[in-house]
Every structure is written in C-alpha cells, then in structure tokens.
C-alpha cells in the first residue's frame, strides 16, 4: 500500500510551474549585523572615552603633583635665599667678626701692583668665571639677583 504522503508528491514538471521563487531575505540579518555593529562601536566609543578620561585625569594628577612640587621648590628657594641673605648680611658678619675679636680697620692703604705681576697671576690662576661661561646647573656661581631672576623666569614659563 502506498503511503498517503506519496500522493502529495508533485510531478517534476508540475512542480516547476507551481513552486514560487523563494529567495533569501537578507534584510533582517543585515539589520541585526548593523545593530550589533552600532552596539560594538558605541561600546568601543564608551570604553575609549573612559580610557581617555582616565588618562586625562592621570595627566591632571601628574600636573597637579608637579605644580605642587614646583611651588614647594620655590618656597624652599625663598627660605634658602632668606637664610643666605641673613648669613651674608653685614650685621651678622660684624657680629661674628666681633665675637672673634676682630675690629674695623682704621686705615686703608693702596698698594700699587706691577702690571706684569698682575698679568702673570691671572695667567696662572685664571680669571673668575663670567656669566657667559656659566653652564646650566652651576647657578651657585651666580650672584643672588641673577639666581632670583632665573627662578622667577622659570616660574612664568610654568603652565
């Protein structure tokens, strides 16, 4: 006995005529991909923005730290130059000299120096360094005003 289903089978010729042309509908999958891409992009942007904000915050913290260190260094510079000014002040020098039993000179005498002797001494010992000869890092050789000017100009260059 033949299967009843077999009776539903269409003859090949008839099937060609009756079967509708079926095509893949790509629209829905494309939308899904599109939505997924947008989501991935959005997530990436969010992650990127978060990373960027984190980096900015890190940089800002670093800037704040450097700024605080700079201010602290400037304060220390002011304290040190005040101490130096006290140490170099005539009143302290006179006090210290008096404590050592020294008294102000009552006479001053000018001694003529042979120019040849002077030239020889300079040639043998070298002259005191001039400002032009001073390389960065050897600011201790500058006088107090020039040191101060250097630090002050650095302050105006800070962000």
């Amino acid at each position, binding site marked *: 006995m033949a299967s009843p289903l077999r009776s539903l089978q269409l003859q090949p010729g008839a099937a060609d005529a009756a079967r509708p042309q079926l095509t893949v509908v790509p629209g829905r999958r494309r939308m899904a991909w599109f939505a997924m891409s947008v989501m991935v992009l959005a997530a990436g942007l969010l992650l990127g923005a978060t990373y960027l904000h984190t980096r900015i915050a890190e940089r800002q913290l670093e800037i704040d730290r450097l700024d605080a260190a700079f201010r602290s260094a400037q304060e220390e510079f002011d*304290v040190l130059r005040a101490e130096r000014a006290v140490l170099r002040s005539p*009143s302290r020098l006179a006090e210290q000299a008096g404590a050592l039993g020294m008294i102000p000179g009552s*006479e001053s005498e000018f001694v003529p120096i042979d120019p040849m002797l002077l030239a020889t001494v300079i040639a043998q010992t070298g002259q005191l360094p001039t400002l032009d000869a001073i390389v960065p890092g050897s600011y201790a050789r500058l006088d107090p005003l020039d040191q101060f000017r250097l*630090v002050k100009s650095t302050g105006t260059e800070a962000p």
Partner: protein
Amino acid sequence: MRTPSAAPSRLHRSTSQRQRQKRRVRAERPEVRPPRDRFGLGGSTARLRLLLLVLVVVLGYVLVKVGRIQSTGGEYYREAAEDQWSRTRELPADRGTIFDRDGEELALSVPGYAVSVNPKLVTNPEATARALQAALGLSDGDARDLYDELVAKDKGFVYVQRQVDQATGEAIAALRANGVNVDREPIRVLPGGETGRSVIGLTNIDGDGIAGLEAQFDDFLTGTPGSLRNDFAPGGRSVAGSEEVVAPPVPGNDLILTLDRSIQFEAERLLVDRVDTLLAKSGTIIVMDTDTGDVLAMASVQRDDEDVVQITSGNYAAVNAYEPGSVAKVITIAAGLNEGSVTPDSTFVVPWRRQYADDLLKDSHQHPDELMTVEQILVESSNIGTIDVQMSMGEGEWDRAREIHWNYMRGFGLGEKTALDFPGESPGILKHWTDLWGSERVTVAYGQGLASTSIQLAAAVNTIANDGTYVAPRLVAGTVDAAGEVVPAEPSTTHEVVSQGVAEEVQRMMRQVVCRGTGSRAQQGITNFSVAGKTGTGLKAQPDGGYYNEAGELVYYASFVGFFPAEDPQVTVLVSIDEPPAGDINRFGGTAAAPVFADLAPTIVHEQGIVPPAVTDECGQAG
C-alpha cells in the same frame, strides 16, 4: 506511471470529516459588550493613546530640561552644587623683593602660615587647645582664651596666631585636627636686621606697605592673589587629591635700589655710635654718587624714650627739615661767583657783628674788622661776610640781589621736594624772597631763616661736586619684571645751576675748608684722598620761635657736607647731628659731624672701588 487520483485521499477525507464534526458543535457566543467609558475619557484605546501622549509630553519636557541643564542653563546648578561640597580660598601672592645695588636682598617674603580655628567644627576643644598651645607656644592665658572660644562655639572663625613660621605651620597642618585651618601667609623679613629699615619701611600683618619704600611702591610690589579650590566631605574634612589651583598667584615686581648694603650698615653703625657718644638727640647720613645722584646710603638714627639710640622706622633724612646753617654759604658764594659780582679774591671789610633790621647779627667768634677775601669768608665761615656777598649780586639794588639769591637757592633744589618723592617727604621751608621780613632777608644767606631736609642739602652741595650740574637724587636703580628681566630706571634729571668753572672754584675753596678751616677733622685718618667740604652749625628753632630750650641753652644742629676725591669728586656725603651738647666743643659741625665723615670714607672707598688719584694737593698726605 501512476497519476494522482482525483478523489480525496484518506487523509483528506478523515480531516474534512473531523472539521465537519467540529462545525457541528454549537456553543453560545459570548456577548460582546460595547466598550464602557468609565472615566469619561473614551474607550481604552483612546485612554491608552492619551496616556501615551502624556508620557511623551512629560518625557519631552524632561529631555528638554536635561538638555538645557547640560548645555547652557546648568551653570546655576553647577555652582550651587559646588558651593555645597567645595570651597575656594585665596592663594596669597608673594610680595616683590627689594634688592640693594649689588643684588643683595634687603627685604623679601618667605613662606609662613596663619593658624585659625572654626570652633563649630572642633570636636575636642580641650585636646585642640592643648595641641595648639604646644605647637605655637601660647601662654596659659592665651590657651585658656582659645579653649573658651572653642567651647562657646558661637563664632565660625577665630585667628589663633598669624605669621607663623613654615615648620610650625606644617607641623600643625599635619595634625589634621578637626576645625583647625592652616593657611598660607607670607612673612616679610629684613635679612639684614635693622639695616636700611628707615628707607625700606614696613608692611603690616596683611603684607601691605605702610611706611617707606614699602608704602611708596606698594602697588608695584604687591602681586595678584590666586585661588585654590578644595572639595570637602561632610564634617569639614577636605577630600584628598581634590585640591585644584583655579588661578595661580602672580608674584609682585621687584625693586633694585641704589643703596649699598655695606655702606648703609656702616653709616648706621657709625651714626649710632656718634649720637650715643655725644648724647645727641638724633642724626642722619646721606651718601650720594656724585655723577648719577644714586643714594648709596641714607641713615637715620634717634635716641628713644629709653635713652637708647636706634635706627628709626621713619626716614628722617627726607622727612625732617632743619635750618642748615653755614652749609648754605656754599650756595651764596657760588651764586655770587656765577653772577660775576665777586671773585674768589674779591675783598670785603667784615666786622664781627652788624645790625640788620631789629637784630644784631654776629660771626661765630669775635674778631676785629677784617679785610676778607671771598675764599676766606667761606673757609672761616663768616656770617657777615656771606651777607656781603649776597648783597653784591644786585649791582646795588638790594631787592634784585635777594631775588637772584632766591633763584639760586631754588636752582640748588631748596624749597621743593626732591625727585625721591618719598612718603612724607618734606619740601623744606624757603619763603619767597618777597615774603621775607626783617633780618630773615639776610640770614638766609648763611642758612638761617630757611629749612631743608638732609637729602635736599646733600643734593645741593653735590651740585658743586658735580661741576655745577644739579642731579636729582634717586633711590631706585631698576626693577625686575615678571619674566625676570631687569628694567633699569630712568636716569636722574639734571639741570645746570652754575658754570663748571665756578663749581671748580668753589670745590677748591671747600677743599681749603677741610685743609685749614673748620672741616679739618673730615680728613683725619684719610691718607690717600683729599676731602672737600663745608661745616654747618645751625640753630634749631624751638616751639616758641626762639633758639633756646627750656634750660636756657642754645639748641644746635651740626652738619658736615663733603665730597672726595677733591680733585675728581665721586661721592658726596652729608652727616648731621641733631642737638649735640650745647656747652660742649662737639656742638659744631666740624667737631660733631666731620669725624663721622672721616670714619665712613674708607668703607665707601672700599665698597665703591674708588682708586686714589695719582696726585693730591698740598693737603693730601700721599701722592
């Protein structure tokens, strides 16, 4: 091949039979009721639509509001929110530094702190008061007062101590005690102690200049404060890491003075000694660069109420004016020479006293009528002879002579403030020649009947040292701008008063004053340089208008103005002693003031690097 049967298959048959059987079942259809309008808003569909509309409107409103807050309209809320959790406080700007001519600091600001409390936030008043007492060294009474304030909690801010040094301030800040604030507050210090205090002046506790150059250049020295924002948690504690400098403070500009710290120190030291030794009231010294008018030292000292001679906080050298006495004869003699009415060798018969108007005017000592040259008149400091020189200028017209003389005194800078324009500076007193009456008309020739400050008198005599050209004194050599660049100050203004030839003649005469006249003590101990100068022993007017004090003694004002090297003047120095002892030999300018000049000169020579001239005159001891 089998063809499909036209009869329905068994499957089809059975299906259609079941369908037919189902159709046969009869059931009562539920009654479809018409939609009821329970709320008067139509049917459910209509209500849903209405609800949707309301939601859209509400959401739209919310969205618009959020959009506005996020874009343009949110500033108010942001500020309100920030006010709740953040505080902005001022960052004080450093006040500019004051340097001397060699770049040494005379006044500068160092970091310091102000310690304050907010009693309302203090959780343990007793512990807080004890901690602050230990850190700040408060007395028991002050600590008790502080404790009372903390317990009362009726104030939100109380200063505990200001101008606290850096180490102490940082130690207190490290305690992180509730309600204790430690704020930056720069401290103004003078590293040289009292040196130059009269000129530099003072700042108050808030850092504002209130005297001297600190007051005169207050706007220039004062910086622009910045601001710092902190976030605070409930309870008043600051959130770590929330500190943000909103605007950095901009430091003030800096001044470079013409003062030389070493000369200033030595001038003050010698003056204190001299005033102390003479039991005088006060004294001033001016040291001036002859060519430029730069003031190298400007010292003022005074005996205080406890009989201790100290450097003054006020610059008496610019503020107080006295009758200069015989130093003013230099002006009269130079004017006569410049007018051509006299020469150094012109002679006058000079009595020791002469009646003018209601007063009998006298020389300092009795002498017979004497034929004196103009040079002698200056060297021996004859009052009567100087009046004769004054009267000679008008070619017989007395009023004309007085007018000419007055014009010269103005030309030498008397009667008006100097270019220093120092706070409280006195213009002195120089009445117009038409306003002078009686003997005043002639006493001005020898320095009585007018008043001048020390700086005026030094600048006047410096005109002679500078070959006849008046140079306005100046105290500021330059400034340092925000970029650290030095900006030199404008050179002093100048004007010619007498010719170079006349100035050189007067220099020579002043050299004789030191060589063989009243100023000889100014040369003592100076072996390499020739000093020229003029002594002055003025009488000091008393409140009753006379020159006698309550004890019936004359009150003197002794001074000496000189310059060196006499052959090529480079430095002019004025020394004045106020109220030297009346009955003592040291009441005169030549005895009270000139020795200080001699003591100070070596320091000036050393600091200024002045090289002695190759040849000195007959008074010089070395050549």
